[in-house]
Structure formats: C-alpha cells, structure tokens
C-alpha cells in the first residue's frame, strides 16, 4: 500500500488563548514603550509563537492486546499505522513565592512552572531611585548560578527541574536586603517554543517596598520604604478575571491583607498559563477477510486517550462517496444524518487507547473514516478522510465481534434541528464545519472561541462584501424603492473599502514653514496618481516642530503653515476628490506652565486643564488623574482619557476640527497610550469617514531572528481594533515587520502563516488593516525601523495588490519610484481590489512568494520563478520589474 504522510489537523482548538493575550485596562508604571534597546530585544513581546522544535511527545507504550496479536498472526492483507499529531493546549500554572530560606535569614523569590518546557526566567530589577520603567541588572549576589546577562539590563536564568517527580521547574533568587531594589520584574520564556509568558501582556512586577506604611499608595520613588517588612504585588496581579484557576481579585486581596497585618510569612501566588504541545499518537488499521462469511473484518486501534468516536462509512468506487452499509454495526453505533455512522471505540483492556472491529460486506471497496475526539476535534488524514482499501485478496480467518465491552453510551449531542440539511454528498464539508462553529458561537457561550468566532464573522463579512461588490457593479435592472443610489457606504473602520492612502508629509516637512502651500500645489498630481485619502501632519501648535508634542490644541498655526493655509489646502484636496485625515495626537499634551513644585503640568489655551487631566502613573508629571489605560509616552504628560471632562473636551475639539478645517477622518497617534474603547468614543462622536490608529509595538524575535509566527503581535493590534469596536483600522505593523525579514534575508516563506494566509493583521482582519512599509518615524530622516533599502517596490507590490488599505509614504511617491507605484495603484483601482479582497497564496518558498487576489490579479515577488496557472484563466503581465511581477486576468 502506498504510504502517504499523514498530517491530521486539529480543527478547532477551543480554548482561550493564554492569559497574556488578554488586554488589560489596568496600567502599571512598568511599560517598555519606545525604548529602542527594548524594542530590539523584544522584551515586550509576547509568547504564542508555537514552533515546537522538540515537541512534547506523549506516546502510549505499545501494549497490544491479545486480540491484536491475533490479527497480526492472521496476516491481513492490509495493515497500516497512521501517525496522529494533535496539537493540544496544555494548562498549567506559574507559581510565584516569596519566603525565607531555611535559616530564616534571607528572603527568597521562587518562580516555578508546572508545564513541561525549557523555561527561562528573563528578569531585571528596578532600583529605588529609578524614575523610568526600565530594568537594571540585578547585583551579582542575587544572580543564581547559570544566569546569563542580557545586554546591560536583564538576566536570563534557567528554571531547574525540581526533584518533585512532577514536571515542575523552578528558580530561586535570593534577595539581598541591603540593596536598594524596589522591584523585581520578570517574564517567563519557553526556549522550546520561543514563547514569552507575561502577565496579561505585561511584565510580572514584584515591588519589594513597604506596602503598609504607605497606605497603599504606590507613588513612585520619593517615598520612604522599609525593605522586607512587607511585600506588595500590585492588585492587578490578582485580577485575572477570565482566568478560572486563579483566586479572584477580592479574595486574594483580602488574603494578602490579612497576611500583611501579621508578621510577614511569605507570599504565594499562582497564575494559570497555557501552552500548545504537540502530542503524537497513532492509529493502526488492519483488514482481514473472514473466510466463512466472505466479509472483510477491519480492526482499528489507536492509543489516543479518552473517548474516540469513529465517524465512518464505506464506498463502492474510487470516488470515495460516503455510503452507509447495511447492518449489523458494531455496538453503540449511531447513524449520523443519514450520511455516516458513528461508532465509539471501546477502551482496551490495558487502559491504553481503544479499538473497534468493523465487519464489512465484500461489495465495498473502501472504508472511509475520520476520528472524532470531541465536538470540535476531528482527526483527518491530510485534510482528507482516511481511506482504507478493502481489496479481496486475503483469506485467513479472524474472530469477529471481539474487543468490545459494554461501555456507557457515548452521549452524542443531538444535532440541532436547523442543522439538518439535506445536501448533496460532495463539497459541503467546509460549510458544514463552519456551520458547526457558528452554532458554537450562538449556543455555547461558555466554550466559544474567540478566534473561531472572528474567523467566521470575517468569513461572513468577506462573503457579504463580495456579494455587495458584484451586486453593486452589475447594471441594476431596477432601482429599489427606498434606495436612490447614493454615495457608496462608509464606515469609519474601512471607509468604502477602496481607499488608497498617502502619507502627505515626512519628518522634514515642517522645515520650509509653508508645507500646506507646497502640498496644495501637488493636490492635482496626488489625486491623479490614484490616491483617494491623504494624511496630513498634526496641525496644532507643538513644542517639537514636527507637531507630535501638541500644546494648545485650538491653536492651529504650526510649522506647517497657518490655520487659513490649512483650510485652503483641505479645500483644494477636497476639490480633487481626496479625503483628508488629520493627525490627532490624543495621548499626550505639553503643558504651558509649571505647578508649585516646578513640574510642567498646567495647561493653557482654551483647554486649560491642570494635573487632574494627567495620568497618575508617570512620576515625571505628577498627574492626579487615574492610572493610564495604556502605555505611557514619557516625553510629555499623558492625558487621562478615563475622565469624562477630558473626553468631552477632546470630542469637542475633534468635532471642531471636522467642522472648522474639514478633516474627513483621523490618523490616531500613539494609540497604545490609551484604551481603544475611548477611541471608539471619539470616533462615535466625530463620525469620521475613515480612521486609523498607530498601534506600534515590537514583533517577537528569538535569538535576534524574527519568529515566523507573529500571531501574538498581530493579535495585540487586533485586540486594539476590537476595543474600538472596529470603528478604526490600525497600521499593519506586523506585515511591515515580516516584509522586512522576508525581503532582507530572502525568506519569502515567511509571507504565509500556518493557515496559508497573509501573516500580518491583513491576514486576520483585512478590512481593518492599513498596510504600509514606511512612515515618518520608521523611515524619513529618523529611520527608526527603515524598510530594507532597495526593496521598497517589492513592499509596494505586496501591499498594493493585497487586501487591506494600503498607505504610501510621501518620500516614496515623490521619488524615482513614482511611476512604478502609480502603475500598481492603477492596477489596484482597475481591478477593484479592495480591503476585503480575497487572497490566495499560491507560493511561499524561500525565494519566491506568489498570490492571486480576487482571481483577478496575480503577483509574485522574489527572485524565484512563478507563472500564474493558465488552466482556468489567461493572464497578461501588467507590470514587471526587479524581483516582482503583477498579472491581470484577461
């Protein structure tokens, strides 16, 4: 028999992603934002990069039952063992313990983990005098053996397997009471997978300051403290709302409180974590012929744990159409929708795995099955059904009907009535599967799975968009009564779906002092290049000339020009059909005056706020608002969006900008700085045509090499978009990062994720992804994260042919790239590629990437060879240049 590689896929893993993916609204002062060294190191990156190099294998030892021996000896005419790979989420705990060592002399911090893996504690300390949130290296005396220095601010210490017998890893750090360490910060890293385990997307932080004496206030560096007389783990550590196994906030707090009132004895805390592991099992199928009845006897056994149901049928020819054979069936077999039979396998005597015996008439040539582990987990053979040929050569006896015991009936959920659809047998599988998921959404809230839900909603959205575009474009045979064919619909998250955005400035644009005038002269040209949205620089008075340090929000005379020039510019842009995005810097604002302590935190101008409008957790500015709902930007006071008066003022301001200047939408600066829910508030109040947020944090790297899987990174961006309720899109930083690696290192395989979709935000939520390759920060004269030089056109060939809303950087369109970019834009417009277009990746190999978009546009990039398939369509080359090529269906 031909042996095929088997790759049963785990269909729908229904488990929440582990904890660190949860967006937290609670902030603490340990953010890592915008610190280049941290960015490059990836200390703030998350885990979820499951690329197991050494999969954890749980294999049942082969304890064949007597029955199997029988079969072996009978020399069946078919026998094959299929490996079954099952990716499973394993849950475990992280333990954090603070206690004294045996001599009761020294305090000791232990961090442990109950999951298998190669665990590394990545940690650093904060000293008492530190004002920033960066880490420092711990003193030598604290470093456990085996620690490795990571640059000058962190340590990596491996967790050791403790002797407890269980799979428990632990590291102990001795704390030196004489040092002036204010806190220990750490994240846990799994070397096996490269995954980082944080606390709800942030570092674990363990302040070692006197909590009691300060009345609960953690006010930063100025406070006196008394080492070791108490301990304090910020409340947020306890608040693990969604996490089942954690003690809930209130109880933990009270527990903590009671402990603190006494002599401090220690501290113990657990956090649930989860990790994907690959489990290898196998299924063995053997077929023999019963000479008496001339029937085929098929014996199926597997070492899969738990209940396994065989979902099976037979076929008469190679077409492999499922058919239900005549009875009798093995015990407990049920008929599923008249299409298949379901037989639970019976546990084997040894307790390892289970087996079943099927008697099949000789008229059938094949036995088809899939294994069903639970409602949502199906094991298939390379995405297909398992197919066992039943040829009729063998003739040795076997005993039928053994190996079954009277087990309890496997309770099968009654299929929902509305799911009972009579379908022709072929090709409906996918729809059914997804349908099952939809049912999962609608009826099983407890077990609903975010990703599955999103993917379905996205699928629905995509289909609807497809239907819409065809209906809309087909010549209407009638005009419906209530619809006077108005302007195409708009929602702020996506615009019309056909936007192509130009960033209308670079880092130097303020220099001339008359940027608005200069741009106005280019308005017609910009429009004729095919753009329909332009993003203008921040318009307010600003401490820095580029505009990103706004001061008086209502003063729109900036280094780019006066308010009147701005109005004229917007007017001319509107005249040539461009929508205008204002760059709204909402996260922070520079103060006009100092307070009595000499701190710059009193604002002037029309919005004369004081320190109450500033977040409390940035010691620089002595804000008296609430803690920040996002990361802090340390160069200026961060505005506290949680307060109604602040939001009211900002909404008023944004509306004023809409009315006064005529902005059509927003580009939201530093959206990491505050909760996306507030963004929704602003968007709802201003009803923009289009809005996009800058949510920029670092991708995940392992050993300086970017990970293939950037799901965690894009998930954080998706989470933010979700928080805005989809009212705003976000720059697809993930795609940019992956393009960097792919192009720079000729690793085009990176451009497909494990599901064969684009690996960036655009692969998950294309309609909300604003793809770009460069902006004023990453490129221009700042060059914080410059796109690989010379590869820009490949980048544009990618984003301008793919779904998502592409954004072109000013420096590129007004350069020698102009004609090429313009060609790509016109290809996009001509073929009506839009933000929800479908993309089929046809090649993602080392040196070539190719994709077909909406079956209308084909593209390839990289030095490798690719030609689009010519069977169904004919293609004509639309543009061909160095290392990329685009075709149109003709």
């Amino acid at each position: 028999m031909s042996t095929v590689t088997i790759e049963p896929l785990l269909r729908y893993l229904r488990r929440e992603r582990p904890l660190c993916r949860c967006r937290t609204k609670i902030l603490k002062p340990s953010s890592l934002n915008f610190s280049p060294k941290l960015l490059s190191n990836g200390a703030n990156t998350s885990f979820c990069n499951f690329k197991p190099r050494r999969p954890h294998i749980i294999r049942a030892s082969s304890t064949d039952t007597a029955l199997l021996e029988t079969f072996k000896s009978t020399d069946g005419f078919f026998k094959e063992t299929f490996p079954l790979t099952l990716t499973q989420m394993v849950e475990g705990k992280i333990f954090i313990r603070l206690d004294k060592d045996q001599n009761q002399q020294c305090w000791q911090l232990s961090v442990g983990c109950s999951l298998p893996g190669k665990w590394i504690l990545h940690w650093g300390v904060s000293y008492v005098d530190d004002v920033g949130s960066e880490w420092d290296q711990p003193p030598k005396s604290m470093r456990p053996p085996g620690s490795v220095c990571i640059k000058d601010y962190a340590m990596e210490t491996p967790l050791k397997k403790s002797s407890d017998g269980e799979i428990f890893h632990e590291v102990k750090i001795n704390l030196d009471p004489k040092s002036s360490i204010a806190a220990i910060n750490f994240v846990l890293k799994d070397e096996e997978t490269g995954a980082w385990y944080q606390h709800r997307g942030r570092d674990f932080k363990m302040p070692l300051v006197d909590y009691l004496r300060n009345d609960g206030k953690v006010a930063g560096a100025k406070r006196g403290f008394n080492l070791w007389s108490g301990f304090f783990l910020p409340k947020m550590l306890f608040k693990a709302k969604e996490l089942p196994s954690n003690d809930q906030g209130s109880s933990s707090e009270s527990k903590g409180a009671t402990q603190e009132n006494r002599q401090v004895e220690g501290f113990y805390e657990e956090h649930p974590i989860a990790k994907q592991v690959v489990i290898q099992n196998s299924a063995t199928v053997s077929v023999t012929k019963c000479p008496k009845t001339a029937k085929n006897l098929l014996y199926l056994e597997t070492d899969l744990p738990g209940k396994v149901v065989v979902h099976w049928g037979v076929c008469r020819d190679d077409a492999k159409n499922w058919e239900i054979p005549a009875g009798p069936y093995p015990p407990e077999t049920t008929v599923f929708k008249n299409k298949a039979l379901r037989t639970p396998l019976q546990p084997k005597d040894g307790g390892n795995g289970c087996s079943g015996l099927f008697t099949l008439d000789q008229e059938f040539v094949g036995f088809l099955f899939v294994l069903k582990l639970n409602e949502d987990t199906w094991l298939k053979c390379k995405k297909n059904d398992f197919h066992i040929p039943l040829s009729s050569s063998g003739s040795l006896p076997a005993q039928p009907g053994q190996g079954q015991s009277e087990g309890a009936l496997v309770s099968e959920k009654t299929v929902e009535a509305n799911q009972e659809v009579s379908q022709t047998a072929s090709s409906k599988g996918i729809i059914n599967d997804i349908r099952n998921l939809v049912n999962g959404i609608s009826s099983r809230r407890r077990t609903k799975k975010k990703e599955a839900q999103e993917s379905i909603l996205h699928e629905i959205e995509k289909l609807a968009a497809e239907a819409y575009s065809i209906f809309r474009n087909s010549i209407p045979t009638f005009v419906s009564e209530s619809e006077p064919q108005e302007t195409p619909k708009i929602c702020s998250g996506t615009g019309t779906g056909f936007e192509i955005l130009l960033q209308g400035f670079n880092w130097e644009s303020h220099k001339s002092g008359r940027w608005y005038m200069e741009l106005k002269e280019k308005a017609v040209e910009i429009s004729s290049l095919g753009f329909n949205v332009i993003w203008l620089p921040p318009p307010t008075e600003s401490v820095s000339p580029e505009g990103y340090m706004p001061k008086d929000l209502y003063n729109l005379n900036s280094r780019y020009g006066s308010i009147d020039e701005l109005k004229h510019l917007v007017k001319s842009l509107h005249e040539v059909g461009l929508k205008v995005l204002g760059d709204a810097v909402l996260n922070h604002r520079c103060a006009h005056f100092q307070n009595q302590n000499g701190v710059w935190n009193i604002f002037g101008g029309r919005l004369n706020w004081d320190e109450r409008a500033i977040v409390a957790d940035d010691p620089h500015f002595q804000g008296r608002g609430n803690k920040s709902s996002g990361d802090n930007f340390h160069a200026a006071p961060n505005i506290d969006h949680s307060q109604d008066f602040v939001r009211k003022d900002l909404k008023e301001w944004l509306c004023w900008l809409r009315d006064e200047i005529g902005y059509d939408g927003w580009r939201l600066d530093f959206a990491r700085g505050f909760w996306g829910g507030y963004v929704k508030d602003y968007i709802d109040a201003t009803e923009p045509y289009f809005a996009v947020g800058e949510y920029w944090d670092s991708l995940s790297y392992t050993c300086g090499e970017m990970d293939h899987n950037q799901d965690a990174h894009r998930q954080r961006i998706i989470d933010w978009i979700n928080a805005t309720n989809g009212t705003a899109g976000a720059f697809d930083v993930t795609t940019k990062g992956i393009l960097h690696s792919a192009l720079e290192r000729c690793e085009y395989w990176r451009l497909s994720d494990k599901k064969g979709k684009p690996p960036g935000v655009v692969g998950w939520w294309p309609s909300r992804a604003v793809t770009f390759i460069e902006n004023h920060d990453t490129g221009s004269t700042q060059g914080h994260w410059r796109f690989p030089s010379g590869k820009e056109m490949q980048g544009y060939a990618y984003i301008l042919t793919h779904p998502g809303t592409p954004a072109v950087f000013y420096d590129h369109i007004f350069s020698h790239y102009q004609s090429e970019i313009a060609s790509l834009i016109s290809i996009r417009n001509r073929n009506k590629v839009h933000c929800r277009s479908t993309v089929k990746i046809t090649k993602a190999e080392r040196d070539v990437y190719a994709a077909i978009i909406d079956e209308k546009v084909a593209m390839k990039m990289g030095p490798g060879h690719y030609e689009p398939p010519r069977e169904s369509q004919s293609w004509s080359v639309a543009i061909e240049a160095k290392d990329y090529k685009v075709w149109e269906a003709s």
Partner: protein
Amino acid sequence: MEVSVIGSSQATVCTSELVHGEQRFCVPRRRSSVSFFHPGTRWSNSGLRFTLNAIQAEPFRSDNLSIRGCASRSKSLDDVRLFVGLPFDAVSECNTINHAKAISAGLKALKLLGVEGVEMPVWWGIAEKEAMGKYKWEGYLTLAEMVQDAGLKLHVSLCFHANEELKIPLPEWVSRIGESDPGIFFADRSGHHFRECLSLAVDDLPVLDGKTPVQVYQQFCKSFKSSFSGFMGSTIIGIKMGLGPNGELRFPSHSRVGKSCKILGVGEFQCYDKNMLNFLKQHAEATGNPLWGFGGPHDAPSYDQMPNSNSFFKDHGGSWESPYGNFFLSWYSSQLLSHGNRLLSLASDEFGGSTVTTYGEVPLIHSLFKTRSHPCELTAGFYNTDNRDGYEAVAEMFARNSCKMILPGMNLSDEHQPQESLSSPELLLAQIRTACRKYGVVVSGQNSLVSKASHHFEKMRKNVLGENVVDSFTYQRMGAEFFSPEHFPAFTEFVRSLNLPEKHADDLPEEEEEVAESLQRSSESSIQMQAA
C-alpha cells in the same frame, strides 16, 4: 419514567382532540416531538416549555406539515426560521442566473449566519414566457440547486403578476391577449387598466385561449411540482401562492404602493373592467337594487386625494356607512375573498398533499388606519372599518385552506410614520394577528423594506420574538443594499440578537438539576392537564 409522564399528557391532548371533533385542536407539535424524538440536550428546555404551554392550555390549530410547532413563549432563531428573499431578478428573462457569483457568496454568508433558507420568486412571465404550457424551469432549477448546495431551505413564491418597475412582464402570450382584450385586466373609474396582473373577475372565464386563468395557474403549479419534485419537502419547504398585485391579496387600488414617500391617498376602487362591472350588475339585480349596479361609488375621491376631499370616506356621515356603502363594500370585498379562496384552494390541492406548506400574502395597508372608514383598506378590498372587522373573514378563508399567512410590514412602527398619514401599522398588524389567532392561522412575518435603521430591526425583533406566534420570518430582500456595509452589519446583529435567548438557556450550568426540575414540572403539568 419521564417519557411516560409526557406520554400521559399527550394522551390527554389526544382526548381533547376527540372531544373537539371537527375543530381539530392540537397542541403545538414541538412539545411532543421534542420530548419524544430528541431526548438529548434540549430535553430540559422542552420540559420547561411544555409546562408553560400546558398551563396556558391555549389550543392552536397547527399545520400538519409544519415540522416545528408554533406556540412558545421563549422564542429564538430556533423557533423562528429566518429566510431572506433572493433578488427579484435572480433568474433573468432568458432563464439564466443574474449575478450568480454574488448570490452564491450571499448564500454562503447567510448559511454561516445561521439563516434557515431563502425565498425565491418564480415569475410566471419568465417560466411560462413564450406560450401557454411551455414551461422553462432551468433557471429556477439551477437556483434551487445552488440553494440546496448551500445547505439552505427554500420558500418559493409563485408570482402570477408582473412588475413594471422591475421590468418583469407577464408572459408574452398573456400580454398579447391583453392587447386585444384589455378586459382581462383591472380597470379604475377612468378606465385605466392595471396591466401587472389579471383581473380577479376573469378567474373562471375562459379568456386565455379557451382556458380560464385558474386552469392556467393550476397547470403552472402542476408543472412546477413535477419539475421540482426532487426538491419538494427537502429543500423546498414552503410555497407562496401569488394572489394579486405584487403577489398580495388585494385590488391594485394604489397603482404602486410605496412608490412615493409622500402620504398615500385613499386609492381607487378597481371594479370598472367589463367583467367586474358585469358581476356588480348581476349582484345588484339579485339583491334588488339594480340601480346600484352601474359602477362604483360616485363620491369616492381619486387616488392621491385624502378621505375628506369627497363624501364617500368622510369620518362622519360618509356614504361608506350608508346602506349603499355597505352593499358595495360587501360585494367588493367578497370578490377579493372568493378570488383568494379559489387560488388558495388550488394551491392546497396541488401542494397540500406533499411536504410543503402553502402560504398566501395579505398586505398591511396601514395608511389612514386611524380614520373611521379606513379608506385605503376599503379600496384594496378589505371591508375593515371602525364598525366591522374585515380580517376575520380573510383569516377564516386561510384557515379553510390550511394556508399560512404572510404578513409584511413587521418592521414598521407607529412612531416612525408621518403624523399626517394617520397610519398605524402596529394596530393593524395586531388586528390581523388577532383574527389569525382566532382561526388558528399561522403567521409568517416579512419586512417591507431594507433599512439599516435600528428601529426597524428592533421592531422586527419584537414582532418575531414577542408573544405572538410567527413560524418563520422572511427578510426582503437580497441585493446590493442588503449586502452594503451600512446595512449588512445591522442585519447580522439582528440575526444574532434572535439567538440570544437560546444561548442563555444553553448556558445554564447544572444540567442534571434542571432535568430533575423539569421532570417534576412536567408531571405537575400533566396533572393540571388532566384536571383541565
């Protein structure tokens, strides 16, 4: 144990059936079917509902063919099967599928959303276009197959009318006959013919090359049935019989309802084609008032006028309240009723024995509902005024033919009607539904236009999930606007909102306790049933 408990109450129900003899009451089927055939996870819910229903003990005449029952207090999408109309022009005049790709994507999207099925208009003018008896079903068969492949159910609307606005004509051969004999169409007082459907007066006259329209409709139904036999009962689960203009049971008193967004006038009586006049004359003579048989009311306003612009519809002292008024309106509305009866009995003859449900659509003519005379309803053929319930007879007629009633306008709310229109969709809907309840006619809902406005969806949700019985809901209609980004998300939200109650029930954590509880309750209920 539990089965026997329910079984006993079922027996009681059967007894009550016998007692009631001819008027065959039966309990909503869901009760029994769920209890007996789905003893799985839904059991506890059904037990609970059983209790409610039993205590309520309100009998419903439910259709034999319906798979699900009708009465249930806590509804969800599971109870209310949601359909979405396919584009009117899904099958082109030359029997090809218009924008098939869009439809196929749309079907998939709907399936994923959890929609039960779609509604497919089948046009007389397309399927029997060229000559009488020469049917072309290919386009519709293809479409039905697409629907089946998508795993959706299908409601078919047989459209014996044309739609000029959509450029869907009557069959060519019918139009030809109409040119030489315009008397087959409705006519208004000024002699203007309404050419979108045949006058109900010719139903039984051999005006179509020697055949009567009813015979032609019947042949059409027969051919449809045999051509689609493979889909009947499996994919096609409902058939709506076209009853008049726009498929609705009414006179074309407004040449196009809803065409202008202005306030609707009273409309005009459509009794001036030669055959109608003929019938009127006969009727007048038979009732001893030959002078009343020469035409409609002379003092009725014209189409766009308001009721008070002439004396017929005046709130007080209008001739509608006079003996003549009663004579005319009774006759006029009875014409509509017997037309409806002819076609619905035809439909239940043709389709009744199979596994599909038959439907007819009754319009929701809510304009000027707040006046005493309800002029719009009167001109449309519903003799419904302050003094008289005109819908009971309609409901009775539906009941007689075991037909379910489609009611549009489930998205309309009073507060969003223009003040001056004196309209009340809510009150009218309530009235019709009361009549239906009285005669045990199952109602199927429909909206009247695609709108993204949230109050429309809110209203539909209330109408669908409320106390009143709706067995299915058809959302009209697929097309560019339906899938547009400003509408589709709202629709998605609507569909998902229908699902919420269900979700809630499934989320109850302690299943076993619940079963025990419901066991207890169902035995209680059985006691109550026996006591009652």
